[in-house]
């Protein structure tokens, strides 16, 4: 809704009060409409929905047991019996990819959850309290950002020990600086607003002001960053698993599956090809949706 003074008497003037009231929910509804209207972000949304449905119904979609070995059927090319072929232990690749969707979602939720919670808290506190608190927190963030992220993740897994859980923790920690910086800058602008001043004036405590008034108004950039981070987290965790530092056998994790197929690249390229395509599509989905969300939630881009 335009805030410019309207020179022409507005026949709907009496409805102005109503339209001001649900302003925040209007933003979300408008944004949702814009996402659906945008072709690319709609494709992203569809890919994410397919991923979620696949994960939920994995046992029904999979044609075989994902970890059942059948040495006689090893390195079978894609066929009607094994849609995407079999790997070096005769396991059905299609079923492994289907079950792997659950692990990808798990990685996305847990790793990004860690980054989100720690990053929002650190960024929120730094931005809200300012001065020396801000200085200390942001210098720590600077130090973390001095490492290329995948390298820091590798180093963390190196000390924690290789496992899917530790890979998720490492990818989560590596994602903290991004969130902290975005939230901090959002908080810096929100905390100057009058409603925050009003909340302080009626005696609300800092914790309450930050949690109830400041952070909820920084939601848009946080949501965009979360979506984009899920794609990156899945990619990084797959990279760690590919290096043998994440999911361990026989877990049907896509990066680990790719790594299993390396030895047979010459004769059985499908063992490598299909898990990679799965990673690519899921990451693409989150990237498309995240980009769409960013545009949709940016009021400057509203026609």
């Amino acid at each position, binding site marked *: 809704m335009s805030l410019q003074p309207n020179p022409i008497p507005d026949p709907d003037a009496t409805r102005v009060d109503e339209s001001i009231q649900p302003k925040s929910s209007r933003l979300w509804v408008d944004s949702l409409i814009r996402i659906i209207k945008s072709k*690319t972000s709609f494709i992203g949304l569809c890919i994410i929905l397919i991923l979620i449905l696949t994960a939920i119904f994995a046992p029904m979609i999979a044609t075989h047991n994902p970890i059942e070995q059948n040495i006689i059927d090893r390195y079978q090319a894609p066929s009607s019996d094994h849609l995407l072929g079999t790997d070096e232990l005769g396991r059905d690749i299609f079923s492994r990819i289907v079950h792997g969707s659950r692990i990808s979602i798990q990685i996305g939720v847990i790793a990004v959850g860690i980054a989100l919670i720690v990053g929002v808290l650190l960024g929120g506190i730094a931005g809200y309290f300012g001065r020396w608190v801000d200085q200390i927190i942001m*210098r*720590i963030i*600077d*130090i*973390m950002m*001095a*490492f*290329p*992220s*995948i*390298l*820091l993740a*590798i*180093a963390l*897994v*190196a*000390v*924690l*020990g290789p496992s899917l859980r530790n890979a998720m923790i490492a990818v989560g920690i590596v994602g903290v600086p991004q969130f902290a910086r975005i939230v901090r800058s959002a908080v810096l602008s929100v905390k100057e607003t009058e409603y925050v001043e009003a909340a302080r004036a009626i005696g609300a405590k800092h914790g309450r002001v930050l949690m109830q008034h400041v952070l909820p108004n920084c939601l848009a950039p946080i949501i965009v960053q979360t979506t984009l981070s899920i*794609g990156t987290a899945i*990619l990084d965790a*797959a*990279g760690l698993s*590919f*290096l*043998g*530092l994440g999911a361990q056998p026989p877990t049907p994790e896509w*990066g680990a599956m*790719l790594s299993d197929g*390396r030895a047979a*690249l*010459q004769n059985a*390229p499908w063992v*490598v*090809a299909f*898990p*990679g395509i799965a*990673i*690519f599509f899921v*990451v*693409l989905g989150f*990237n*498309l949706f995240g980009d769409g969300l960013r545009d949709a939630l940016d009021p400057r881009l509203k026609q």
Partner: protein
Amino acid sequence: MLKYIVQRLLMLIPVLIGVSILTFSLIHLIPGDPARSMLGEKATEAQLESLRAELGLNDPYIIQYGRFIGDILQGDLGESVQSKENIGYELLHKLPATIELTIFAMILAIVIGIFAGVIAAVKQYSWFDNISMTGALFGVSLPIFWLGLMMIWLLSVKLNILPPSGRLTAGIKLDTITNFYLLDSILTGNWSAFKDAFSHLLMPGLALGTIPMAIIARMTRSSMLEVMRQDFIRTASAKGLKKHLVVFQHALKNAFLPVLTVIGLQFGLLLGGAVLTETIFSWPGVGRYVYLAVLGRDYPVVQSTILMIATIFVLVNLLTDILYKYVDPRIRFD
């Protein structure tokens, strides 16, 4: 300008101290006994004790850290637990391979990325724009380890046109001076080695350069579109300047600033991505070195290598900021 550079260099000191504390702490974050973790379950108590004494793990943390920093400042990066080789010497030998690879990847990314971005912006909504931007969108979502393996399968296994691994074919002789093989082969006038080293660089360079290429192309396009709408571009066209002069001399120059930032940031990603790329292509660089050290739990190697890469990364970021100021004198840093 000089004042700014000195100021920024001074600001680096606390960051580098923080980086050194973090890398130093790595070994102490290991659950349980680091010596046991490095030597394995079969190690005897005497072996463990000797390693602890060698690495000074029995001393208080503050003394250990002081020694860690003191050694590094004197250029001593310690020695590998497994091979007993001097880490500084190893890194010095492997670093040129990684730098050669990352610079090559970056050049590919910058040249192709900027070219695609400029054409896409000039011919907005054309087939070229659609195809290159879809490609760029796909590029940022590609797992580079998968892309690398698929390239090996197609170009080495199926078509047999590029070598799948290493820096040089066995049997080809090259006198190394700088350890940058392309440079060395030019300096020694050894063209067969140049051709061979170049063919070895192509695949890993392309795999490593794909993501930055995609990001640079997208950034260039959006930045160019913004600049092309400005009045001075219309003026330049109106006064009859040739189209390519308007695009490259007037528009690109002004659209370059955000692209430069992206390039600086991507360099760090490349250093990280080098671990994956070097592993796939058996590229004997720092990335593969640190990866093998992680697998072998050779923590001194992991520490020193990571510290060195982080330092390079920080310096590259500083260089980007300085270039930024140089490219756009309007920017004031206070």
